[in-house]
């Protein structure tokens, strides 16, 4: 008891600055990240990106595009688990806001994600590689969309680990959307088709929309409510 009150006096009445909180949080958050899951996902995603090389001596552009898109989707599925927090019932009541903690999680994953994407792109032979900038936009949109879905699941349900449900839903949507979306939107076309440019405008919109959803779903809900009864 006495030691705690002593610490409070040292820190003063002012709450610690955000930067300091982040610095102090870095190590525990890093420890709480689903590192093994992310690493396994990234490894499988790299395997998918390598499939054109592995399956054929002379892979074509079509298989490269499919492999790179599937790799991006796989990594995005792994990202759906990043916000899982088994101790959510305890951490929801701490004074540090949730948006700070989740942003820190994502910031810690981001360099890893960037390195992974570079490796995935390099695994595709340069001769058949689709335009890297546009593909990066697609991958970023998928990744942020997955994170935004996870944030939304945290915002609207009381589940501590919604990653599994989010990943399932995300995968289902990802499978159906190429069939359901009109071809004119050009989101799943190949680089040789004329809708490629329009499609990447749409991907940019998805990215912006996902960032907005992510930001909007940042705060911890004040009241618990259940959308999906379990």
């Amino acid at each position, binding site marked *: 008891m006495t030691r705690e009150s002593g610490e409070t006096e040292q820190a003063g009445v002012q709450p610690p600055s955000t930067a300091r909180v982040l610095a102090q949080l870095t190590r525990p958050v890093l420890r709480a990240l*689903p590192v093994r*899951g992310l690493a*396994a*996902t990234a490894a*499988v*995603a790299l*395997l*998918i990106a390598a*499939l*054109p090389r592995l*399956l*054929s001596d002379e*892979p074509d552009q*079509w*298989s490269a595009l*499919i*492999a790179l898109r*599937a790799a991006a*989707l*796989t990594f995005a*599925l*792994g990202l*759906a*688990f990043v916000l899982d927090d088994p101790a959510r019932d305890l951490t929801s009541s701490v004074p540090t806001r949730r948006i700070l903690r989740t942003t820190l999680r994502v910031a810690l994953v981001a360099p890893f994600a960037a390195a992974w994407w570079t490796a995935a792109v390099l695994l595709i032979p340069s001769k058949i590689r689709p335009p890297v900038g546009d593909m990066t936009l697609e991958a970023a949109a998928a990744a942020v969309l997955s994170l935004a879905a996870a944030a939304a699941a945290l915002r609207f349900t009381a589940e501590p*680990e919604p*990653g*599994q*449900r989010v*990943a*399932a*839903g*995300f*995968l*289902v949507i990802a*499978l*159906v959307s190429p*069939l*359901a979306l009109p071809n004119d939107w050009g989101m799943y076309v190949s680089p040789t088709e004329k809708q490629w440019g329009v499609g990447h405008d749409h991907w940019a919109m998805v990215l912006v929309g996902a960032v907005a959803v992510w930001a909007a779903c940042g705060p911890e809900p004040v009241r618990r409510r259940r959308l*999906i009864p379990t």
Partner: protein
Amino acid sequence: MSTVLTEAPAETSTAPAREPWSAIFALARFESRKLLLRIPVLFMLAAYVAWIVWRTKSGWYGYPALQDVDRATQTGPLLVGFAVLLCVNQAVLRSQRHDTERLFGVLVLEPWRRTAAHALSILPVTGLVVLGVAAQFGWQAVKSTAVGHGSVGELLVGPLCVLLCGAIGLLMARLVPKPFAIPVAAVLLLVFSVLAPASIGGGSATAWLTPIVGEGSTKTIPSELIGRPAVSHSLYLTGLALTLALLAVLISKGRTKTSTAVLAGSLAGAIALGVVGGVGQAAGVSSETVAARTVATLNPQKVQSCVRHGRSTYCAFPEWVPRTATWAEVTDHVQSLAGGTAQTRKLLVQQRVEARYGMEGDGAIEPSTTPNQVTVRTMWGGPRTPEFSAAVASVLVLGNEKAGGDVCDGRMVTIMWLALGWTSDPVTELRAVRLSDTVTGSSIVLSPTNGMTMTAGQTSVVRELLAAGPSTVTPKVKAHWAELTAPKVTTAKVAQLLGVKAPGGADKCE
């Protein structure tokens, strides 16, 4: 007091003998209800229904051949299969996620029995897919225009894929009990199954190891010539799904010696089933089928039956005989527009198909040189109808089919008028029958055998004739029939005879 004591032990002693099995079924019922109500499964079932409606509305122009319809039911169930793959896996891992594994440890069901119940829970959703496949196939089969025969083996592939997906989800949950494993594994499986056949190549024994085997050709051939090992393949898929599911049960804990022995025996049976199917499907096309394909391609009259409708005779593969009446309607319409002896000429309409490569490749059919013989192919409806009427018209005007490839003069106008003048929407048909899908400029006119060439001038004359309508044009065609069908007649002359504006320039084919 004494009555209670004597009755109570009697109940407890009889109950345990059959309780585990009824408990498995009770759990399977609960899990299947839970599975059917999961959002991904419901969503994918809705998507599957939408896919069926879309496929059925857009397919085969209203004239389905059932040996093609059965294969077209295979890919849709994969949508449901993927949701089942994810949700079965998550259902098995639910007790781990909610940390109720320890509570279940004291209950009557051991882990292997719970796995078995999860395996059984896949069956109701598979039943729904069976209904979907039956609806999709039945929708086409009840049409009076349908021909051919479906194969049960091909129809079973869709539902078996759902079972297989569920079994994979089950096995994955027992092998890698981590929540992130299954979505990732699902994408890996999907990409592998998309990319692998492309690099392996279709038709080989390795290609048949994948659940759904596509074909390189979209043409229709008689069902007995298809030569796909559909029944063996469905046996193989059944064996594979059972093997995976039994393996999942077998690696779950809590088995007694007897149950292990029974499960191992069933697993051996399932593997045997899969191997039998796998060997059967790897055998390739039988020599009888190859011989039958050659006969059907080169000497179709040996296997065809001929029917008379009106003046003309129609020879078709047995499965297509009901459709000869539809062909006869078109022939009669075309002949009714013609003049001279052509109106009453007896034609022989013969169905021909290149079946020697099975479903793996296409081949052109050489036009017939026999006078008054017209070729009709196996597909019908949409652009196939004006293509056939163009062939009939060319035979009426030129005498035989072979001459259609060389015609470059004004007779082309007469041919196209006969082919399209009787239809209700001739301009749309003109667009459909031309390779370029246009109604201006020069283009190739498709026909069941070799195409014909239409110049820009002929196109404009034909368009004007179609706009004028049969009531004005038909009397003129009948009156000038001999001049219209004379060799070397110019397009300008034909236009003048039929009373429409003549195009500038001479006939010149590219």
